[in-house]
């Protein structure tokens, strides 16, 4: 396959970026998108240029690092896949492919296609945990009975890999899908109950502080989410935040 690639190049957080055009020939349809990017960088380096910086780690859809906005969609045209799971057979010979970083106030560009997603980490630090005593007398999690359906929903919420495709896809750069998944995975389990109300309040507060947008319920996040995180998580967070706000003493 022969492709024309339009890639976002930006030297640092403060400088202006631009789209650079590269012709890439002999791409195999069996390559993953990241392998195609490796091939591009190889070509750039051989010509004496500066390779395109992009994030990646596991290359098997579990780490969430491979943030790329491809042809107007997070992780490209595929559904339920990350960029590393996207293959070149999803494109046609002669295609022009636009490749951009996630765009959000809360995710500043570090260089080229890499963005700083530590805003997500701070949301987790604000309440995405349960407080347990780990000094040797911990109770086996399976000792507490959990209804199967509830356990399944909690597990589904917990499959969120924190990739940020939801923020990237949302026209408002809202982080509601990510935050609601992280709220839900605890709200659905008995171990999450003691901190259920303070957790949702603290995490929502941090989410707002980071400068993510508000939710218009367009549903773009759930369509583009590689893990199929469901909008019912957002509804659960809306419910929990409301009852926590009404009940809280402050």
């Amino acid at each position: 396959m022969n492709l024309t690639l339009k890639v976002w190049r930006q030297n640092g957080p403060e400088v202006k970026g631009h789209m650079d055009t590269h012709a890439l020939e002999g791409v195999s349809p069996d390559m993953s998108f990241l392998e195609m990017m490796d091939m591009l960088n190889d070509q750039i380096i051989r010509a004496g240029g500066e390779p395109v910086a992009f994030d990646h780690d596991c290359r098997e859809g579990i780490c969430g690092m491979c943030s790329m906005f491809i042809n107007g969609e997070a992780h490209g045209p595929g559904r339920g896949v990350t960029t590393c799971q996207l293959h070149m057979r999803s494109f046609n010979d002669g295609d022009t492919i636009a490749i951009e970083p996630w765009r959000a106030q809360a995710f500043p560009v570090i260089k080229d296609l890499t963005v700083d997603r530590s805003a997500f980490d701070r949301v987790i630090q604000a309440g995405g945990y349960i407080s347990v005593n780990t000094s040797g007398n911990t109770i086996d999690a399976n000792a507490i009975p959990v209804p199967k359906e509830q356990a399944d929903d909690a597990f589904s919420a917990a499959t969120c890999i924190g990739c940020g495709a939801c923020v990237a896809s949302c026209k408002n750069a809202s982080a509601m899908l990510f935050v609601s998944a992280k709220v839900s995975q605890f709200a659905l389990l008995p171990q999450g109950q003691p901190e259920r109300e303070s957790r949702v309040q603290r995490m929502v507060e941090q989410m707002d502080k980071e400068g993510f947008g508000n939710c218009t319920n367009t549903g773009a996040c759930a369509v583009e989410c590689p893990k199929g995180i469901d909008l019912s998580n957002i509804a659960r967070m809306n419910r929990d935040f409301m009852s926590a706000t009404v009940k809280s003493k402050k």
Partner: protein
Amino acid sequence: MSNSGILRSSLAKKYVMALSGLFLCLFLLGHLVGNLQLFNTSAEGQLAFNEYAHFMTTFPLVKLLSYLTYAAVLFHVVDGIALTMQNRKARPTGYVKEKGSANASWSSRNMGILGTIILVFLVSHMQNFWYVMHFGPIGESDGLKDLHTVVMTFFGPENGLAGLAVAGYVLAQFALGFHLIHGFQSGFQSLGLRHSKYSPLIERAGLLFGIGVPTLFASIPVYLFFIQL
């Protein structure tokens, strides 16, 4: 609830948006029932409509409802502007290539524009009918303010711009329809009212509401315009 931080939160803003929006949906239903009486253009129809208009502007409980409606519009508009402005700020640099249609409906992506069209319509609509009913000039018939004639004249040959008025009315109803097709079910979601059994029903009800209500509203000026040609 005294914590201003909580009231300023993104979720609280959405509760206000949803509650005011869904309240306005109820208002639309009530308003529509009143307007449908305009299909009866006979002398009895005129009297019935004017009696209804008199009741709606004087009965204390209805007055209370009307103040609630003004408040809902105010909250909805101010909150809508605040949300939209924040949302723009959340993405200062846009994408060079963005395929919005790939993952979200057109209505959901254009609520601000649709709302603005509705707002422009609302201002002119209130100027044409609400203001005249409250502050005149308005004629009398059977001892009642004759709003019926005001409406008939507005959409009739005596108004040189009646054709334009009908077109504007219909356009605004299109905007309202698209606003509701997304907004109705979105309001429930914002309040956390989502359930695998009931949400498909809410979505269908929203579609029906969003198509049915604006169509019925729009049919009235169209009808009045053509019978007076």
